């Protein structure tokens, strides 16, 4: 049972990091479909640099730098040039998949089995192991798990107890009113996009150097969209997102366990769970709670409808 929870938390970490990070972008009014792109870039570059430098922290740094470049490009397209956010998202996802897979083939001899990179150490200090009940589980997680939890707590405070959080929410719900009150909506959206891509990349890194220690073409396999599903299922609230990410991560772990045991139930039925319960929830709950101007470019003093 403990092993199952350990695996579940390891699979929750990437989703939670990406989802909480993207919550900033969504709240500020940016529909960031490119979260899948940031995850695959983070997954690949952390693996690439960890492998060639033999140091996981250089890998982590590389993931962040790659994501910063992506964030600046995203900001230029989405915020400055006011391009259609969905078309941009679809395009950048295809680009990131194509680029990582191309560079991967250039740098590694694909086909000779997976070349393992060093991985992030598990935080198994004695004082963590000594925590009653959950010590055994927590000591098997990497630092990214703790980053995710800390980030979640910070996010709750920032979004709901600071003026910056109020401005972020205003930029998504009514950018014109926010603008009138002196909020720099484009700058705010730039910053929120940056937060989104950085934590998306860390989420990707949690998959490669945090968990599996190898890379595979398109290995994020829609986890960016699972993160979006977690945001929607979590009703755009940090604790809701945490709950959704836990459900999705655990169902993923369960699915893997089923495959190992070799039960006769097709594992795909478990992969469906995150998407299916999100859509079922949409049928049941009331009208959308998405920020009103989510996905719409901001025209200063202009028509935003």
């Amino acid at each position, binding site marked *: 049972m403990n092993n199952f929870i350990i695996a579940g938390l390891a699979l929750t970490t990437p989703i939670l990091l990406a989802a909480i990070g993207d919550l900033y972008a969504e709240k500020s009014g940016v*529909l960031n*479909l490119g979260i899948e792109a940031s995850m695959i870039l983070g997954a690949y570059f952390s693996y690439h640099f960890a492998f060639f430098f033999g140091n996981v922290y250089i890998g982590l740094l590389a993931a962040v730098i790659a994501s910063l470049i992506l964030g600046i490009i995203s900001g230029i*397209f989405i915020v*400055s*040039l*006011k*391009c*259609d956010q*969905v*078309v*941009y998202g*679809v*395009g*950048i996802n*295809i*680009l990131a*998949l*194509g*680029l990582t*897979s*191309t560079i991967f*083939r*250039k740098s590694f001899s694909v086909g000779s089995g997976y070349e393992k990179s060093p991985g992030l150490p598990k935080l198994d200090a004695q004082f963590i192991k000594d925590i009653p009940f959950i010590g055994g589980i927590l000591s098997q997680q990497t630092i990214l798990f703790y980053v995710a939890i800390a980030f979640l707590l910070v996010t709750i405070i920032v979004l709901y107890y600071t003026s910056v959080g109020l401005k972020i929410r205003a930029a998504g719900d009514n950018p014109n009113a926010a603008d009138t009150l002196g909020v720099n909506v484009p700058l705010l959206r730039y910053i929120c996009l940056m937060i989104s891509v950085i934590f998306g990349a860390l989420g990707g890194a949690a998959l490669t150097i945090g968990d599996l220690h190898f890379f595979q*073409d398109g290995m994020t396999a*829609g986890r960016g*969209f699972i993160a*979006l*599903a977690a945001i*929607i299922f979590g009703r755009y609230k940090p604790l809701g997102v945490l709950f959704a990410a836990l459900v999705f991560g655990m169902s993923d772990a369960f699915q893997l366990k089923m495959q190992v045991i070799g039960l006769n139930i*097709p594992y*795909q*039925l478990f*992969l*469906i769970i995150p*998407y*299916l319960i*999100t*859509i079922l929830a*949409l*049928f049941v709950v009331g*009208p*959308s709670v*998405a920020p009103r101007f*989510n*996905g*719409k470019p901001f025209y200063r003093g202009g028509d935003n*409808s």
Partner: protein
Amino acid sequence: MKFLQFFRTKGVNNVIYPILSILLGMLGAGIIIAFFGVNPFTAYKELVKGSFGSIYGLSATLQRFMPLAFAGLAATLAFRGGIFNIGIEGQLYMGALFSTWVGISFEKLPAIIHIPLALLAGGIAGGIWAFIPGYLKAKKGFNEILVSIFMNFIGVYTLGAALNTFLRAPGQGIPWSSEIVESARLPQLPGSDLSIGIFMIFIFAFTIQYIFKHRTFGYEIKAVGYNKDASIYGGINTTKVIIVTMVLSGFIGSFAGSVEILGMQHRLTENFLVDYGYNAIPVALLGGLNPFGTLVAAFFFAALINGASSMQIALGVPVAIVKVIMALAILGSLGMHGLQKTVESRRKRRDEQL
């Protein structure tokens, strides 16, 4: 907001913008190819040779063209109605799943009944798959983009689950279906391995164009796409238009999957067509959201996809480079329009101040 209007350029720009974007994509990808130590011109020559250089190559290109064209037409129809149907991937998987099911189930049906039945089963499945995001958008105001992406994953995994259970060919180690029975296979054009599905593409394209130009419903689709609020004011039942457009789009999209199985592969496998539903989006946009432009774009992308494999074999440049070309083309087109718009509005504001 004028939905994706900038992709619907007029006159000369209709040709210039897509070509410029594609050149940009090939330039960007060419730089990456150069990093492989391969001359980009040699690589592109190999690509063209692979896709047009022989009868075999051309026929393979046309085979890639068919699913892209169906999927691209589905995207074009929905986009013109202001609906972001990104769910074509799932819709074509469901189309393939259900037409396979019909295609392996009945033994002694005459082809004249069996083929339409199989296509219709796939079409209805695709339509239902598209109905869900359409309904949630029209009735409850949920974002159809996210819902249709989620439906994609559900569709892909459902097909996998089906191939591991009731659709799995008996006694086989691999998760694939039995072969489509003879009476459900699409007839092939004499002297080629292309199925008659290629005619259906043109029938769909002409029908969509006809509806847009000459039918009230086509006008309503365009009106809702252009300005939803004004359409409501003008007495158009936008809820109905959105749902029907989406269902029609899913119906057309399903043919990408069903024609591929009934007309070519004759056996359903888990990864029988990967990413064609997503690639439909660049195809439709670079095709100017016009049915015939979409066909041209689909043919071009089909040539890229097909030629890339011979490029990989001859020069070792990975097939994934095609994704880079496509993505850069679509981003380049997006960026150029965005830049143009921004510069124009700056200039206008400056003129007003003077």
